[in-house]
């Protein structure tokens, strides 16, 4: 490929080929290319927040895997996203204790306030809400909400509503927890 910048299918960001290749270069020494697929995808997920289509094509070329193989893995594991997501992500902890003791109410609040359900994105592309089908391991803080990789404990509907407002209006500052 002679291009230095790949067109990301109309996506908002462009992808530097050199940087992408540099990530892939790290795995050149692996004997079994297939084994490197998940670490490679993790790197790209970390870099871009999702797996852009041109990157999937590049992985396919470099690791000698077919696109269905790559997308098969990328869509199976919950850590990978194949589509560009919203600006802010609300992650509601839905471990049993959190679900039974309050996160249902939070899901309801998000639906009422932002008009979105689980995995949907608001029309302005600002918000998405996801369900954490695992545990944060801090069940004394239930219910737990994570917004953009910051975790909040003992969240009530009012507190979550306030947080969303603060982020929306840019008044947001690092809270404790």
């Amino acid at each position, binding site marked *: 490929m002679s291009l230095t910048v790949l067109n990301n299918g109309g996506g908002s960001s462009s992808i530097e080929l050199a940087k992408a290749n540099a990530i892939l270069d790290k795995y050149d020494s692996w004997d079994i290319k297939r084994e490197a697929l998940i670490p490679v995808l993790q790197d790209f997920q970390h870099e871009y927040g999702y797996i852009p289509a041109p990157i999937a094509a590049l992985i396919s070329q470099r690791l000698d895997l077919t696109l269905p193989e790559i997308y098969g893995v990328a869509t199976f594991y919950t850590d990978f996203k194949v589509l560009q997501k919203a600006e802010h992500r609300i992650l509601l902890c839905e471990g049993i204790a959190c679900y039974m003791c309050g996160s249902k109410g939070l899901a309801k609040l998000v639906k009422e306030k932002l008009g979105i359900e689980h995995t949907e994105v608001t029309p302005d592309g600002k918000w998405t809400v996801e369900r954490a089908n*695992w545990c*944060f391991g801090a069940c004394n803080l239930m219910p737990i909400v994570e917004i953009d990789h910051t975790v909040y404990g003992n969240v009530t509907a009012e507190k979550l509503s306030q947080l969303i407002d603060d982020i929306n209006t840019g008044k947001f500052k690092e809270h404790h927890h």
Partner: protein
Amino acid sequence: MNRQQFHELQARLAGQRKALFENNTVIQVMMDGGSILSGAKQTYEYFKKEIASRGLQNVVVKMVGSFGAMWADPTVFISKPGSPRVLYGFVDTKRAGELLTRFVLGDDPCANWSLGWVSNDPYHYPDFAWAKAPDEEWRGILPIGRTEWGKLQHRISGRNLGFIDPEDIEDYIAIGGYKSLEKALLDMDPQKVIDEVKASKLRGRGGAGFSVGTKWQSTHDETRMPKYVVVNGHEGEPNVFKDRRLFEGDPHSILEGLLLGCYAAGTGDAYIYVGSEHPLSFKRIGIAVEQARKAGFLGKNILGSSFSCDVKVIIAAGCYISGEASAMLYGIQGLRGMPRVKPPRSYEAGLWAQPTTVNNVESFNNVPEIILRGGAWYAGFGSEKSKGTKLIMLSGPFKRQCLAEVPFGGPISDSINIVGGGSSDPKHPIRAVQTGSVSGGCFPPSMFNIPFDIDAFGKWDCLLGSGSFTAYTDQQCLVDAAYYVLRYNRDESCGKCVPCRIGNEGLTEMLWRIKSGDGKEEDVEKMLQISDLVIEHSICGLGQAAPLPIRNMLKIPEFKAELMEHIINKRCRANVCSMDHADNKKLGFGTGVRANHQYK
């Protein structure tokens, strides 16, 4: 490093550790994934800053792994020369400041904030049972073995939790770490190691409860090379956090157990598979592996023996089902993590179709102590069929949400009412306890005398699983709990077995209908039929356990009455279910079925 050098190193580090506690005031802040969310990092930094700015001499701030007292997070230990190590709860920066002035600088031990005192050496406690130590009350502070929370605890697997700095191999060696590796490599042959593990009757701690010794023997007996040993640390269930607390609090003993497993299997290729949900776990196990490599416990000719071994840490990519043993092996190979039909078992065809031992973190963690003290010692605890002790996790409206460890054999009410302290609010007593997280049903208080034993729960369609207990009071609805478990399993089903993929969807939909007030009496019979079908025709533990809450609910009269109330009277006594005839594609049910992705 040879044997002589190892002994010298150990003596030196043990002396250093002893001198540290004898000459200094040591403040240990418990830093784990959970307590950091409660503000442990701020407390830790506050202590560091204050001590530096006040120029205090002989005061050392250290971090340790979780001690398990999660309800009181952030927690710290403070030990002054000549006084025991006192555990304090709810230590935010404000309380930290008070403790600093009143106890560290003054002489008031603040007994009302204390949760008990704990020795700084896990081997102080005979057999690691806290209550067995003949400790005295110190200035109004009870020894941990005489507190309500601690009196039943018997910490074999979690022996080092809260005692050592998890990011420092020297701390682990100082309290006797890698001794059992030394004993095995230099004094025992692999068969002898396996015999000890067999004699301990240790059963797998991941949920299935398969004998660890038998697994190790099978891999040992396979002659095909290469062979692999894998630690399954992909802990994806909700309300289960024992493996990550072990990774975060005592990574070296997992590594030591893994090395013993490799030695027993006769291989030098090992993997540690850690869930991506626990960033601190893979950070700390990564540090542990690096330190062990540097110190010579990994690599060529370990401790002067002919045994060589190296470990790879693999970070998973999420997804609950890829924590199943066979699925996990596919995950390591870079494939979709879907379970497969067994046999062949993993000792016949595991990683790259080679013989592989796969065990849970907690299983490996027990092994060093078994080798050191003998299998018979371990088999002396627990019930007839389940030997030893088990980490339990209490969550929900308990008085004490915590990580604890109790021996098998006692009634589960011990764990619920003594370790957990019953309900957090006496006005809302516990009316059911969910066992085994998302694989199994609940027990009502009338059945809390059922023994805590791997095999005892099956009759009631509950599973001990990984040892999680979640309490429900009259604020929670049991139909809602069953709906949650079914929905969870539906979401996490890999879809390979059709009955699981479609059956769980159907069951979830029926429970949603019942919750919305549209249940019909014939649903009960239908749900039972589908449940049996799903259980019978699924190949892995997820499918076989998913419909258990429904069968459990129909077996236990109290729960059945509640379900029938929902169906016939359209009433939810906990006032949780909406009963609003909601369309089942609305709130709580949608999984993003409506595509809203816009391709340009």
